[in-house]
């Protein structure tokens, strides 16, 4: 079940001279330029305060840059309307956060199904897709569990299922293993690699060199700039 074929070297995420300044004169990003091709798996590494989270939120269209040009899935983020960007996030981008952001009052299934709420798909279809996604991340037996009944690693896998259930072309992960022990962190990381290999672009933020080493491309950030761009 593959979508329309497209050139392997198409650019999924593009930043061109992007700067981001917060009120109070904090320069989170200074003139960042980078192309991430479709199917790329990229780790963004850097100490805290280096601007990597800001870069991810701009790539995820949650924020607009102060200057520069951003293209996400071919869309000009600077010029697009709020609802255009929301549509992009609803269909093309799957987020995975360090803090899981699951709703305790809902089952794993409904947490995942809720991830597709803004696609406008009816509940029955969303639940069906959610069930498939939970099976895909190895939680087929946990669909009716609530977050508090799950381990940290399982919670993050529910969050990953939520990100991938809508079959996004881009997965953005912000320290997804940050709250996990090394064993379940490892499993989550492998899962992300595996899922992305099936046809999505993956950008992952980490400050952990061991995590970064599993990526074929690594962007090193410091003080709001990309200081190195390594490929293996």
């Amino acid at each position, binding site marked *: 079940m593959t*979508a329309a074929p497209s050139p392997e070297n198409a650019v999924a995420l593009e930043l061109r001279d992007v700067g981001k300044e917060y009120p109070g004169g904090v320069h989170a990003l200074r003139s960042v330029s980078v192309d991430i091709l479709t199917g790329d798996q990229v780790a963004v590494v850097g100490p805290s305060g280096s601007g990597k989270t800001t870069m991810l939120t701009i790539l995820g269209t949650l*924020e607009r840059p102060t200057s520069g040009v951003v293209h996400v899935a071919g869309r000009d983020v600077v010029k697009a309307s709020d609802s255009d960007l929301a549509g992009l*996030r609803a269909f093309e981008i799957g987020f995975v956060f360090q803090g899981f952001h699951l709703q305790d*009052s809902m089952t794993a299934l409904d947490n995942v199904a809720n991830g597709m709420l*803004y*696609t406008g798909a009816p*509940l029955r279809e969303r639940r069906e897709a959610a069930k498939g996604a939970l099976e895909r991340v190895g939680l087929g037996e946990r669909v009716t569990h609530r977050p508090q009944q799950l381990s940290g690693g399982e919670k993050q896998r529910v969050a990953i299922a939520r990100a991938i259930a809508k*079959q996004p072309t881009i997965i953005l992960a912000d320290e997804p293993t940050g709250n996990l022990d090394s064993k379940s962190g490892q499993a989550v990381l492998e899962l992300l690699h595996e899922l992305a290999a099936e046809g999505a672009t993956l950008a992952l933020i980490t400050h952990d060199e061991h995590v970064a080493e599993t990526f074929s491309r690594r962007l090193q950030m410091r003080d709001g700039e990309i200081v190195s761009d390594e490929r293996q």
Partner: protein
Amino acid sequence: MSVAALKGPGLPRRRRRGGRDVARLAPHELFGVALQGLGTRRLRAALSALGIAIGIGAMVAVVGVSASSQANLLSTIDRLGTNLLTVTPGTTFFGANEVLPSTAIPMIHHMANINQVSAVYAVPNINVFRTPFVPSTQTGGIGVDATDTGLVKAMNSSVASGLFFNAASETEPTVVLGAAAAADLQIEKVTGHVQLFVGGTWFTVIGILNSMTLDTSLDNDVFIGLPAAEHLFQVQPSPSEIYVRANVNDVSSVANLLAATSDPQNASGVNVSQPSNVLEARAAAKGQFTTLLLGLGAVALLVGAIGIANIMVISVLERRGEIGLRRALGATRRHISTQFLAESALLAALGGVAGLVFGAVATWVYSVAQNEPWVVPVYALIAAPAAGLLIGAVAGLYPAAKAARLSPTEALRAT
């Protein structure tokens, strides 16, 4: 630009609309989201809706209680009939009292569309006492009227005890007591041979009347037969008040003719009125007293609205993580503001429904205690939840705008 999508089951791909991916939230989904938002904080939701419930409950109770007593009064009027007309002498231009001619009664009897005619005649300077030993100044405010045999029927009243006058007893020194007069004289029942001292003559009590709701001033009087009054007290047969029952459909045409018929030479000196109108006006006036109480209900509503706005602001701050997540999942700013607006409106509407129930129950308790019909106006069934909805929507405006303005990154970082 698109790549091969992730393998495995997913959403059916029908997301393109005019070549664009549009984030959507169907109204029923919005309702579900709002309900779920309230459902996760049930106790808090219930407490904050309580203010609205109390305000609306107070208003529904006020409106219901007043509607119940109105309904009671109106059903009394219906039972007594709205076709009673009264004819009374007016006053002259100089303020002196007019006198109805003694021909008035036979003239009215000749009118068309008349069912019943009766009259009372003042018996001036005659008082009633239980014994001759009561000082003559202690009249107890009880008046003496002469009347004919048709009064009880014309007033649609009834005899509580004993009998009313008939052709025989109206010529004898017999007396019938109005309800209030009987109570003042401490005569509860017609038993044996009870006599009253009326104008220097012993009269036998033959009956006690029930209240005459259409003219309660008669309740304070005692009645003697007109022939007896003429004979014993030289009363002139000039009526002080005539009661006419017209056919139900001809009340106004009869009313228009009554003055001229009663006193053809001086029709302007005759007053004609319809007592049921006075009672209806009184029923309407009962509604007026509720304005103040409604105002108090409105104050409670205002306080409730502020409570809801307050709780919603706190809720927005607490749920920054959820707001950020929703934005990441594709919610527009408008989706977020609509969600919080819907939560606020739903909360207050539920408060309104609860208030409606409180108010209806309070009205029911009142109506049972007062032995009145239980009436909750139909408009309240719609107005109570609608008022809640509106108040909630207004109270939610600021929190909703605040939620929409929240930067998603900041919101995501919050938890």
